[in-house]
Each structure stands twice: as C-alpha cells, then as structure tokens.
C-alpha cells in the first residue's frame, strides 16, 4: 500500500536535475509553495482560452469540446427522431399518402444513418472526451487539438448530410447502403456519394477520438491508478476505443471503394467485371456488428458508475466486469456474418457464427449478475439515473432474448427483413444504449453544469419513455411475425396490420414526448436547477472531487489514487502531487501499468488551426464527390493547413 501512496517517492537521478539546471528550467514557477487561491488564479490564466468568437473557436479544452459533442449529438437525435415521427405518422394507417415512396426511402435512410453515425457513436465519444480525463485525474485529454479537430470534422460531416437532405439529395439506400443498389448502375446522381462521404467524415472523427482516449488512459493517469484501480466507466471507454480502431477502417475502406466505383469506374462491386457484391456486405458488417458494441460498451460503463454510486459500495466483481468488456469486444468481431444468413453461406460457416452469436450473451449475462449483486440487499434511492438503469435492465434483457432467437439461422430466415428485426434492434439500441445514456446524463449533469436536473420532470421523462418505448416497439415483434416487411412506405388495409401500427404510432408519440421533456429539463435546469455540490451522489471516482463545473485546468494538484473508488478511501483529505509548472500547460505523464510518475510534459494550448484543418478537409471531401482531381488539390490544401497547425508559433511552444 505504501508503494501506492508514494509512487513517485524514488529520488530524482542527479543527471536529470543537472539537465534541468542547464536548460534554465528552474525559472519556471512551480505550484509547490503557492497558496490555493493564488494557484487557482494562475492556473486559470494558463489553461483558459482567449475570450471572443475566435477564442471560442480555438478552444481545445476537452470539457468544452466534449460539451459541444453532446449538444451536437442531441441536435442530431432530435432530427433523426423527427424523421422517425414522420415515418410513424405515415405508417399509422394503411394506404396513407403523407409521404411518397421516394421521400420515405430518404427518410428511413436519414433516420438510421443519423441515429447510428451522428448520434449514438458521437454521444458516447462526448462522454469519453469529457469524462475520461477527469476520471483518471488528468489536466487535459491527450492530443487536445486532435480532439478539437475531430469535433469539427464530425460537425461538418453531419451538416453535409442534412444539407443534402434539404436539397433533395439525401441517400435513399438504407443505413448500410448495400451494393449493387448503391452502386453506379442503380443509384445514379449523388445520393449514395453523400452517404459514403458522410461515413468518411464520421470515421475520421471517431478514430481520432479513440486514439486520444487510449493515450489518455495509458499515459495520463494519476499516480497510483494502477490497472486494477481504473474506474469501470473508463475501462469501458478504453475497450470501446480499441474496437473503434479495429472496426472502423473496414467501413472507411468500403465506402472509399464504393465512391471509387461510382466516380472513376473501379470494379470492386461490379459482378460483370469480376467484382463481388457480397464483398460489400462482408466489409460493412465486419464494422457494423462491432458498431453495436461501440454504442453498447460505453453504456455498460455508465451503468456500472450509477449502480456503484447508488448502492454506495464498490462494484461486486470488478475483475469479471472488466473481463466481460474485453470478451465482448473480442467476440463482437466474430459475429458479422450473422447479418448475412440470408445470403446462402456454407453450412459450417453459418453454424460457427450462430455459436459465437449465442456466446456473446455470456459476458452480458455476467455483467448483469454483477450489477444485481452490487445492488443486492441495498436500498438504492430511486432517483432518475437509477430509474433509467432499471429500465435498461428490463428492456435489454428482452432485446437480448430476441437476439438469441435471430442468431439461429432458420428463425432468422423467417423474420429476415421484417419488423421483427426492427423491433429487436431498437430494443437493443434504445434499451441498451439510450436508456443508460439518459441515466448518465442525469447523473453527470451536475458535474457538467453545476446544477441538478429536475427530479420531477426526470420521473415523468422516465415513465413516459418506458411505456412509450414498449408500446412502440413491442407490437413491432408481432407485426414482423405477421409478415410486415421493413422499409415499406405503406401497406394495404386488408393486410390486417393497421391496428397494431396505430398502437405503435401512438407509443411513438409518447416516446417523442419523453424526449421533449428531457430537452426541456436540460435547458430549464441550466438556469433554474438547484445548485449542485461537487459530489451530489456521494460517488467515489475522481471527477467528483472537483468543483461543479470543473475549472479549465481540472485538478489544481494531481490527485494520488489509492483505491478504485478513491474518494471513498480518502474521506478526510485527498493526497496530491505537486511540483508542476503553473505558467505553462504542464501535465504529468505516467507509466502504462503502474501509473508511476515519469515525465512532465508541456502540451499545446488553444489554436484555431484544428478548425482550419477541418475546413480544408471538408472542402476536399465534399469536392471529391464531384471530381476525382479534388483528391489531389484537396490533399495539398489539407497538407498546407496541417503545416500551419504543426509549425511552432513561438520558441516557447512545444506542439503536438
């Protein structure tokens, strides 16, 4: 234990001290002897950003970037939700004429694409960018400018998609854009190109965030935060980031090949010239199934945090919970073919993928048992975050059960492309990710804003969502078994599907109302909410040691971690490290496994160049939809912007 409390206590080698002496570094002001108020004042000056619009656009503070990610993702949630409501309005009655087939195709594609790529993944990244540095006790995220850049790239990609929708050029080939439908022969015009390029934008951004998060967890943990003291939510973000790194290149490569087929007539997916349509499906689902876990794994991290805080005891089975995350990540790569059972794969292959699809239920089961065991015998206060966790457990288990059902080939063939599948994946996505997400938002909102969200509105929010969700989607199982196919813009009245569709649409109005309440609550509480103390839930992880909202520099002095719920272990006062510079953005770099202090490094500050680079990249991406030469001059443009980014502006600056 004493080793952990004094992880950096080893004496400093003489030559290091001599090197410091020689480089004149002794002049820097260090925090050691500064009184607290003075320290806060000087750190705020060093870590703050310039005021004004340019200052705002130049921010590389991970909390500002993370918050922008949230707000943007929520706007896309509202847009995709509106698209869903339009579909439910059209489908409420048979033979309805609100929306024609062409527009309907665009709308369901926009809904699916926006929900997956512009809402669900980025909103999880938002938590990663905002919370991971706080939870590991760091002053900032690794590569702060890269994180800022990733936000702008994401924003511009989303804007491109929705502007195209307004111009009647939205993709209309479904969220997975199967070839040959999306290829040059069956989709002339620019719609599929918009889809493919939107993929490129969002994947660049996710990959950048994944690298930042991984390096933050590996190298910027507070002293003493050994691997077995990393908070579960951070483990979840870390494992997710690895899944991103290995899954997303597949879809980027696929969408690039699709655009090449469409723009310069390569033949990757063209059967006539030796290409293969199924190749698209392999590449897409190699990414697409892990994608579901990219959304789900961070959500399990939220659940762990909330359950532990509300049970007021450390997680039961820390190690199994971590191993379950890792196992899920590995298995998620063995599953892609289950989306392709209907394509007539060889028998043995299909059996293998059935087995691995069923196997993935095991780690999920372990997680659920650990959470229940953590809560066992406790009487957690049923505040809104906890309500959403309960809702998650119920809905997710149901979604998992239908999941195990469709993992078997004969059943899958029966319900393939029906509303049964639509019901299944909304149970998993909304139950497994959106419910924990809303819970997490209620949970961390006080940290983000310094105010509590309204509990009363929160309870209404939850119950409306729970009832509305089940009404909307439960009946879709039945509709699917009755044979209603997905992606149809209407259906005849003698099909008998009318009444259940009406029920579903009514449910969706309740669900939409619940999201409305959520937005009202979030906005209202921003000004009117009760002031939040620094640790309203009496939780144990490091972010709760900070004021709400945290200052630009996060920790005035880097905490020293002695337990995986450090605040519960050190109730009186927190041991901290000192000796970092206060007039430069200096941070602590620690070792990978034991988190021993290793280096002091100066990190780059605010800069407008990430935004300029993102603009250059966006010009290149959008222009290359129209001309292959844009890849050349656009590349030069991006190169020039990156030069501006990396070239040091003063002799002081040590840039990324």
């Amino acid at each position: 234990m004493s080793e952990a409390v004094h992880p950096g206590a080893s004496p400093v080698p003489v030559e290091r001290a001599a090197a410091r002496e020689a480089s004149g570094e002794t002049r820097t002001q260090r925090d050691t002897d500064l009184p607290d108020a003075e320290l806060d004042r000087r750190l705020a000056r060093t870590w703050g950003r310039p005021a004004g619009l340019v200052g705002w656009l130049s921010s590389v503070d991970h909390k500002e970037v993370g918050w922008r990610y949230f707000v943007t993702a929520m706007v896309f949630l509202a847009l995709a939700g509106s698209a869903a409501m339009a579909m439910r309005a059209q489908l409420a009655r048979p033979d309805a004429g609100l929306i024609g087939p062409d527009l309907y195709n665009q709308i369901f594609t926009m809904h699916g694409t926006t929900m997956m790529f512009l809402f669900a993944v980025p909103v999880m990244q938002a938590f990663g960018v905002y919370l991971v540095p706080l939870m590991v006790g760091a002053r900032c995220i690794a590569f702060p400018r890269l994180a800022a850049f990733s936000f702008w790239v994401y924003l511009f990609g989303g804007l491109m998609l929705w502007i195209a929708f307004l111009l009647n050029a939205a993709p209309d080939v479904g969220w997975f854009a199967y070839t040959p439908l999306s290829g040059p022969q069956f989709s002339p015009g620019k719609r599929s190109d918009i889809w493919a390029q939107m993929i490129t934008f969002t994947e660049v951004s996710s990959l950048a965030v994944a690298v930042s998060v991984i390096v933050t967890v590996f190298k910027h943990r507070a002293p003493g935060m050994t691997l077995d003291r990393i908070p579960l939510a951070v483990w979840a973000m870390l494992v997710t980031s690895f899944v991103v790194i290995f899954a997303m290149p597949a879809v980027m490569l696929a969408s690039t090949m699709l655009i090449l087929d469409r723009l310069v007539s390569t033949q990757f997916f063209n059967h006539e010239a030796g290409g293969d349509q199924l190749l698209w499906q392999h590449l897409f689902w190699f990414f697409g199934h892990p994608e579901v876990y990219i959304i789900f794994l961070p959500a399990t991290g939220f659940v762990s945090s909330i359950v532990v805080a509300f049970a007021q005891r450390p997680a039961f089975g820390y190690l199994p919970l971590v191993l379950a995350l890792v196992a899920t990540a590995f298995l998620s790569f063995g599953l892609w073919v289950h989306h392709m059972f209907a394509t007539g794969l060889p028998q043995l292959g299909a059996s293998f993928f059935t087995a691995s699809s069923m196997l993935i239920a095991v780690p999920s089961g372990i997680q659920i048992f650990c959470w229940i065991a953590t809560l066992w015998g406790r009487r957690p206060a049923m505040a809104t975050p906890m309500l959403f966790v309960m809702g998650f457990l119920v809905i997710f288990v149901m979604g998992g059960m239908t999941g195990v059902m469709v993992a078997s080939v004969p059943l899958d063939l029966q319900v393939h492309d029906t509303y049964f599948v639509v019901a299944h994946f909304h149970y998993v996505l909304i139950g497994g990710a959106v419910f924990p997400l809303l819970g997490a938002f209620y949970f961390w909102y006080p940290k983000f804003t310094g105010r509590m969200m309204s509990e009363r509105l929160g309870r209404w929010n939850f119950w409306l969502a729970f009832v509305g969700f089940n009404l909307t989607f439960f009946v879709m199982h039945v509709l699917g078994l009755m044979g209603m196919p997905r992606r149809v813009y209407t259906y005849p009245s003698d099909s008998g599907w009318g009444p259940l569709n009406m029920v579903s649409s009514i449910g969706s109005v309740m669900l939409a109302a619940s999201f409305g309440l959520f937005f009202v609550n979030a906005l209202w509480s921003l000004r009117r909410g009760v002031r939040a103390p620094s640790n309203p839930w009496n939780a144990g992880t490091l972010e709760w040691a900070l004021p709400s909202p945290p200052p630009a520099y996060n920790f005035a002095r880097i905490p020293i971690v002695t337990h995986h719920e450090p605040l519960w272990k050190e109730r009186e006062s927190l041991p901290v490290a000192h000796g970092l510079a206060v007039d430069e953005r200096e941070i602590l770099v620690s070792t990978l496994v034991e988190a021993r202090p290793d280096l002091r490094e100066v990190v780059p500050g605010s800069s407008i160049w990430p935004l300029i680079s993102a603009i250059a990249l966006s010009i290149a991406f959008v222009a290359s939809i129209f001309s292959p030469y844009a890849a050349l001059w656009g590349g030069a443009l991006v190169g020039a912007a990156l030069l501006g980014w990396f070239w040091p502006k003063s002799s002081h600056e040590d840039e990324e």
Partner: protein
Amino acid sequence: MKTRLAVDLSGLPPFGFDNRSPIWWGTLGFVAIEGMGFVLAVGLTLYLKHVNPHWPMDAAPPDLLPGTLLTGVLLASLWFNRSADKAARDGDLSGTRLWLVVMTVVGLATIGLRLWEFNALNVRWDQNAYGSCQWLLLGLHATHLITDVGDTAVLTALMFTKHGRGKRYSDVSDNAFYWSFVVAAWIPIYGLVYWVPRW
C-alpha cells in the same frame, strides 16, 4: 475537497523516448488503424482472387522492375532511418540534420518510383476487379509514402531553425518509427501486387 501534498514531481524530465512518450503511443494508434486498413485491403484482394480463379483476369502481370527497385530502396532506407533515430537519441544536432536530409531525399525518390510503378502495372483501374485491386493497394501505400515524406520534410526544416531542440528529438524518433511501419507494410503488398499474379 481538502488535499495534502504527498509527492513531488518537479524532478521529472520534460520529455522521453519510445513508450515513455504519449506521442509514441499516438503514433502506434495510427499505425494500428492503418495497419488494419492494409490487412483489410490484402484480405479483400485475396477474396476477389478467390472469386476470380484467373488472376490477373485478362490482364498481363505488372513489370517487375520498378516495384522491385522500390523494395530495394525502401529496405536500404531503413539503415538511414536508423541513423536518424540514433542521432536524435544522442541529441546530436548535426547528425540529426544530416540524416533527416538524406531521408527526405530518399523519400522523394520512393514517390518517384511509385509513379513509375503505376505506369508499369499493365492494367487500368477500371478494366476489371483485378486492376481495381492493384491500384487500390499501390494507392493506399502511396498515401503513406507521401504523408511520411511530408512529415519528414517539415521536421527537417524545423531542425534547421531555433525549434530544433528538446522534445523535437523524440519527434524525430517517432517519425523514424512510423517510416519503419511504412516499409514493413510494403513487403506483403509487394508480394501480392507483383508475385501473386505470376503464380
């Protein structure tokens, strides 16, 4: 929350090499991403080859000379690359400058050879799926050549200014690490592009 001082960090050094440095890990992250891209590109080429038993379909295999020459230059460059790395680790400014200049020139030469390679493929990208794969593989690798040569050129210029000190040495070392990856990634692609069609 109340705090108490426990550990002094002021004696820690301001930068380090290899896995001590965050940038090294960042580079490794991008190497993993791009490595995955290469693995997938190789995989899909083999997949399409499996679908089309006559590989190179109706085209002639590529001329061996430019690609083999490039492979030779890349392998030789590893030595210069190591020298740059070593000079940086020793904090040897003139050595670092020298080897960075050499690496920039060699890098430019590899880009020139790559252009020649495209001309000697004996197939257009739009001729058939085989041609598309050949162009994809060479193109994907070419973007890496260009990125790293650009990066090397900028670093070289920096080392001739007043910024050429301190942490910059570990940047040089990370850049050298990335180049080794670019070379390593080429070897299987060389086999796939030049020898598999001759099998």
